[in-house]
């Protein structure tokens, strides 16, 4: 099992214990995970994430057998196409983008171009709905959650597009999924890091209605407990217990 939603580096709005790649590898071992797609957490809040990407590549290099880089690419920044090519050359399975943090609206054309460009290179576009619960956000953290409108606009952008949407809850997932055609639905994968388990059983309901093949394993380490998505799978009702999630390596052409 691969964790598609791991990060390294500090978070600007609260202390996060040891968000380092060597610690992440030990956590993967403890949790029985074979590897992780890893982004650079502070890059989400940089105006220009390119230097964060440089740090990411360097930090992950000693752990290349377990940790794959997922750099951030800002599509309204000059020469973003070069950053996409660099990501491709570095073996990235996906690139990250943060439209709310970069104030790119749900119908921003540069985001559509980025999603298509990544897809044409065989990479997914990884989106983050939220880093923290709305009720605890810092007063300076005013970006807001990624909207369903933004996600469905990207899912409709073209055949090459592959989206991995992280940290979404049931309502958002259902709104996006049922606002797309079956072909468009097939372009979107959801990580399970923020989906509720029992007694509401949101994850089980989504497996029954949308199908487990649309979901991937994600933790949002180092912000959240790695144990949470595994616990969610362990508590699934019998009829969906043991359902197979999508293999992240199979949804990208790399």
């Amino acid at each position, binding site marked *: 099992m691969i964790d598609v939603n791991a990060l390294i580096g500090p978070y600007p709005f609260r202390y996060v214990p040891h968000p380092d790649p060597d610690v992440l590898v030990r956590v993967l071992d403890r949790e029985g995970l074979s590897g992780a797609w890893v982004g650079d957490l502070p890059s989400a809040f940089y105006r220009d994430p390119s230097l964060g990407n440089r740090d990411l590549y360097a930090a992950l290099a000693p752990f290349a057998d377990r940790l794959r880089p997922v750099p951030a690419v800002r599509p309204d920044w000059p020469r973003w196409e070069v950053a996409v090519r660099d990501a491709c050359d570095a073996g990235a399975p996906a690139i990250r983008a943060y439209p709310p943090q970069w104030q790119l609206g749900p119908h921003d054309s540069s985001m559509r171009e980025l999603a298509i460009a990544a897809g044409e290179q065989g990479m997914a576009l990884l989106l983050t709905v939220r880093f923290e619960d709305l*009720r*605890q956000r810092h007063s300076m953290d005013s970006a807001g959650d990624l909207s369903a409108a933004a996600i469905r606009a990207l899912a409709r952008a073209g055949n090459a597009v592959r989206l991995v949407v992280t940290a979404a809850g049931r309502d958002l997932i259902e709104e996006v999924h049922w606002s797309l055609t079956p072909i468009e639905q097939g372009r979107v994968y959801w990580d399970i890091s923020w989906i509720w*388990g029992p*007694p509401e059983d949101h994850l089980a309901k989504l497996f029954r209605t949308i199908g487990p093949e649309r979901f991937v394993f994600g933790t949002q380490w180092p912000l959240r407990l790695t*144990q949470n998505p595994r*616990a969610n799978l*362990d508590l699934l009702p019998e009829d969906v217990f043991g359902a197979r999630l999508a293999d992240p390596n199979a949804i990208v052409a790399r």
Partner: protein
Amino acid sequence: MTAARVEAAALGEPLIDAHAHFYHAAAGRADWAAVNAARFRAGERIGITYHVASILGSYGFSSPTYFPSPDDVTMGNDAMLDLCAREPDRVRMLVTVNPNHTGHALGEIARGVSRGAIGVKLLASRRADDPLLDPLAQTAAESGLPILHHIWQHRRREWPSQEISDGADLARLAERHPRVTFILAHIGGGGDYMHTFPAIVGCPNVVADLSGSGVDRGMLDAAVDTLGASRLLWGCDLTMETGLAKLRALEAIGLSADELGAIRWRNAARIFPAGSFPRCAPATAVT
């Protein structure tokens, strides 16, 4: 066998969920029985010995969840009493009250305790440090009942649909009633828990439950570092997968077996009235 089942069987130690809720037919949702069944199903997987639970009126169907009418309070407590009667081996009751109706609240506490309730549940119907809560706390002191108080971790403004309290508000109430144990609800239930810990650390009669959907890394470490394992109760509230994750995380952060046992059940056995959990090993012998 799932990992969770293996875990529950292997540990063989009691586990008390100090913060649970159940639903009933007048709670405004057609799937209420399925949600209750799911709590029991997940509880068996996790290895929960007792669910210490309350019902919050009609959950908004006929009066607001956090401002339940007296009729809804009574209806919810009736449903909870019925559930306890059906599930005497695994469910314990907290009496839900609305302190804006003092006489009714006191009457509900007396009625509930006479039928086996082991504590009081306060919502967000009145700020925690309001004098209206004093007669309820006095009654709790006389009866040896802990009070579980709904909390927003660090309230910075008013929020709709509730008169929210935070750790500092609850600490003021606790200082006025040192004989009562107050359970500060769900450190993972929203807001800034890092404000809560220093706000209550000076009040030894305030303990915190770990429940809530929040699973921030660092939260459990900070809770243990600031309050100590003897002032923490394990619980789930609305999300049981986060409860199981926290249980596993508590082991991963290196707590001793004694500290783990305290959080799993012994603190609850100490705080609630003697004899509340007969399926747990003799609690009074362990400090």
